[in-house]
């Protein structure tokens, strides 16, 4: 074995000695090129689109399975119990058992349901979310599609989930389903605004809607150690926090899981779903979580960039998925820690807290850029602290004001006599 490298196919026909670093880094791209090369000319265009699509679905399909087990295990830890530990090594094959269970369950459709919509809703839920995974750069040159308006595309297809939720709720002919669907729509639309606002800050600073370019704008290091990720700036830090809060709500994750709050409205818009249709909803929800987490990594955490120059030897997609894992762990942690919100509290939180702060953050980003010209000693630190204070103080004070406990008052019956 040659210690300097291994023989690799670099694209169609190319054959040369490469180091392991380059092999892992470029491997997926070469593999695609190599596979496409076999095909006749007319099929190449199709294959170039299809191969990344299959790869993305396969990777995230597996990740979905692992994430469900990881979630249950981590929640188990938080709740001081073991979690699943029977199927496979340490229970990690639990998702396969769950999948088989879901597949073999009876698919019950209510007699009075609108059968066509009832059938379509899960597909409409999953398909756009899967589409939005296409524009996220998973590594250097590792992106399924890089349109100039990647971010816009992401949000555009992502909002189709609202339609799916309402389709499911309406077609089930169940009042709880409809209530859940109404909640889902109110919630998703409310939280899309702060989500987009905090993404907009990044667009403004990076000067591009293309996610690939946004990642490239975060390359390099300050003083050679601190990566130039957006999260390292005050507006980026605030933006990430706002983004993640809004993302949890937009993807119906606990503590914002009101659309399916089982103790209140049974299963929300999924009440009348069973078997594999239910599993597809479930999958759509997880894919949604992956997509927004991936977007958060891309926008604020430097995408596939390594945190230190010396660590760039590891493949870039490794860094991306590591960061994605951290984000998912954060979601699970929040789920285990916070109780569910009530509908009005949820909407208040979105409209009265996240939205104004998102707008303020846009302003902070402008100030940050405006102060970039300062050139006295310690200017960087002053600029940093000034901007942090500008977003941090209002966040704390406004939060205090809104969280003032109102307690109870004498009951006033506003409607009924």
């Amino acid at each position, binding site marked *: 074995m040659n210690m300097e490298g291994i023989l690799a196919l670099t694209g169609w026909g190319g054959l040369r000695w490469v180091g392991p670093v380059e092999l892992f880094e470029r491997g997926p791209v070469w593999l695609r090129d190599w596979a496409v090369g076999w095909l006749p000319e007319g099929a190449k265009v199709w294959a170039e689109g299809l191969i990344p699509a299959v790869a993305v679905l396969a990777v995230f399909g597996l990740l979905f399975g692992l994430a469900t087990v990881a979630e249950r295990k981590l929640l188990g830890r938080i709740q001081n119990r073991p979690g699943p530990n029977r199927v496979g090594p340490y229970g990690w094959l639990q998702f396969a058992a769950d999948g088989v269970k879901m597949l073999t369950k009876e698919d019950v459709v209510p007699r009075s349901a609108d059968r066509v919509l009832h059938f379509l809703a899960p597909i409409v839920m999953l398909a756009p979310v899967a589409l939005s995974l296409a524009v996220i750069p998973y590594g250097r040159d590792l992106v399924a599609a890089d349109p100039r308006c990647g971010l816009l595309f992401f949000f555009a297809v992502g909002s189709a989930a609202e339609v799916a939720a309402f389709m499911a709720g309406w077609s089930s002919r169940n009042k709880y389903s409809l209530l859940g669907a109404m909640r889902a729509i109110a919630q998703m639309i409310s939280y899309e605004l702060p989500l987009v606002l905090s993404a907009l800050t990044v667009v403004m600073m990076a000067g591009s809607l293309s996610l690939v370019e946004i990642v490239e704008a975060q390359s390099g290091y300050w003083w050679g150690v601190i990566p130039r990720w957006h999260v390292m700036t005050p507006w980026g830090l605030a933006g990430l926090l706002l983004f993640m809060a809004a993302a949890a709500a937009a993807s119906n994750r606990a503590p914002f899981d009101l659309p399916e709050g089982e103790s*209140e409205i049974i299963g929300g818009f999924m009440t009348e779903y069973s078997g594999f249709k239910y599993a597809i909803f479930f999958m759509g929800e997880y894919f949604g979580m992956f997509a927004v987490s991936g977007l958060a990594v891309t926008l604020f955490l430097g995408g596939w960039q390594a945190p230190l120059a010396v660590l760039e030897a590891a493949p870039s997609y490794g860094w991306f998925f590591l960061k994605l894992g951290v984000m998912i762990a954060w979601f699970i942690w929040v789920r285990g820690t916070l109780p569910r919100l009530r509908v009005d509290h949820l909407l208040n939180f979105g409209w009265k807290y996240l939205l104004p702060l998102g707008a303020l953050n846009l302003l902070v980003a402008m100030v940050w850029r405006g102060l970039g010209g300062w050139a006295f000693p310690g200017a960087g630190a002053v600029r940093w602290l000034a901007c942090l204070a500008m977003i941090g103080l209002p966040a704390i004070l406004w939060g205090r004001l809104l969280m003032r406990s109102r307690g109870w008052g004498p009951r006033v019956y506003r409607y009924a006599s």
Partner: protein
Amino acid sequence: MKPSEILTPIKQRYGTAIQRIDRLDDRRLVLHVDAGALKSICRFLFRDLDARYIAGIGADDRPYSGRFMVAHNFAFDRDGLLASVLAMLPADAPEVDSIAGEVPAASWSEREFHDLVGIVPRNHPNPKRLVLPDGWPDRVHPLRKERPWNDRPDGYDEDRPFAFDPAPPGCVVVPLGPFHPTLDEPAHFRLYVDGEIVRGCEYRGFMVHRGIEKLAESVLTYNDIPMAAERICGICGCVHNVAYAQAVEQAASIPVPPRAEYIRTIMLEIERLHSHLLWVGLAGHILGYDTLFMHCFRIREPVMWIAEKISGNRKTYALCLIGGVRWDITPELHDELDQVLNRLEAQWRPLVSALLEDRNLRRRAAGIGVADRALIKEQGLIGPVARAAGIDIDCRRDHPYAAYDRVDFDVILAQDPDVWGRISVRAREVFESIRIIRQCLVKLPAGLLQAPIADELPIGRIGMSSVEAPRGESHHWLITGENHRPRRWRVRAPTYQNLQGIPAMIRDQRLADMTITLGSIDPCFSCTDRLETVDVRTGAVRVCPPEELRDRLRQRWNEPTTP
């Protein structure tokens, strides 16, 4: 106030209408009054003397006195007095003026004796059926003595649906129950909803009746009934067990050995421990906070184990017989119980401090399910619901029984008459229970477990017993009778009263708050529904093989739905 001080104003106002006054002991009073004055006297007790309404009882007394009997029980909590106002009604016209207009808390009791005994409350504000299903034939009253316990009357139409009131204009009906993820037992709330705002509801419950009261007066004997009584409730069974035994002991003047009294106290507090731990967990689950749920259940489990070591069962301890208890606390159990309590306290204290300082939870639970003082008075709400509103009532202190007069404990109060206050009260009551058990273990005297009873119990005596269940006061009322069984035994579980407050508590708040508001009274539908007499097809327990079940289902499925 002594009984005499309460009696003086009553005697002054209603001198001639009062036929007889029985003072069962210093803390129990029975007033035999004219049926015509019943309503007026009840109003006087409830409004002017500020008594708390407990329960109404109807009984078929025809085999003994040739008449029907109706009684309304009141509690004077500050004075430690339980009073029963009793009137006899002629056998040919069992009618009495309804007191529900004056004493709203009596509404269900009157509907119940209308259904079961056939005593008609005249001018009842809501004279619908409460207990019996709508398909039950009129004029068949299961608790009348001529009906057998396993009666299945002709003309019973099992499939007839409930006749619900029409929904108010502009409202959509959302059915909650009988099956809902957070209802552990069946009950049906027909919610009138405007958007997400609940404007009112109609309740249909009593779906899990087992005819326990009828069985007690027709089949079982004195010492069988405690075991049936504790099956009234799956979670506070020991309460019913003790309350029944105490009612009989009081009626027949049987002294209970002190050791037995202490053991009863210990078991009742063990039950309160596991019930409150369970409830706090369930409240967490209803509020979407499963982490709290899991921790509560983990902390609760050792309590169940020690209960099993003492009685042989995690639940249904089969503790009491008339005049004593069946299980002893041996020295080994004594030490182990002590250790369980230490571990429980060490684990529960940090959890409670985290829980009570959680701002998210507080915001979620504060201001919903409000039951203010007026509502509590009108509907006779009890237990943690009342204590959360700052109303200082607790049967353990006000009407002491077992060994509660010999231990030192605080009645936990809060000043928030909402769900948050109830969470806080229940979470903190756990510490008082631990304190009570510890004192009992120290003071536990040596001696007999069971009083020797040589003679038959006297006949025709009235017994009353109030026991503070984890959910509030559990009240048992009975008349001793022939053949080693009571003539009439009436159980009023705490949820029976607390459920009557629910329509006012959920009104004009969000649908999302419905389940936690209902949950906050710690509802126990089996307790409430204890007394169905409808027995079922054969009256015998039979295991239905799966094939037959499937065939029946298939048969149902293929039947055309009736319009």
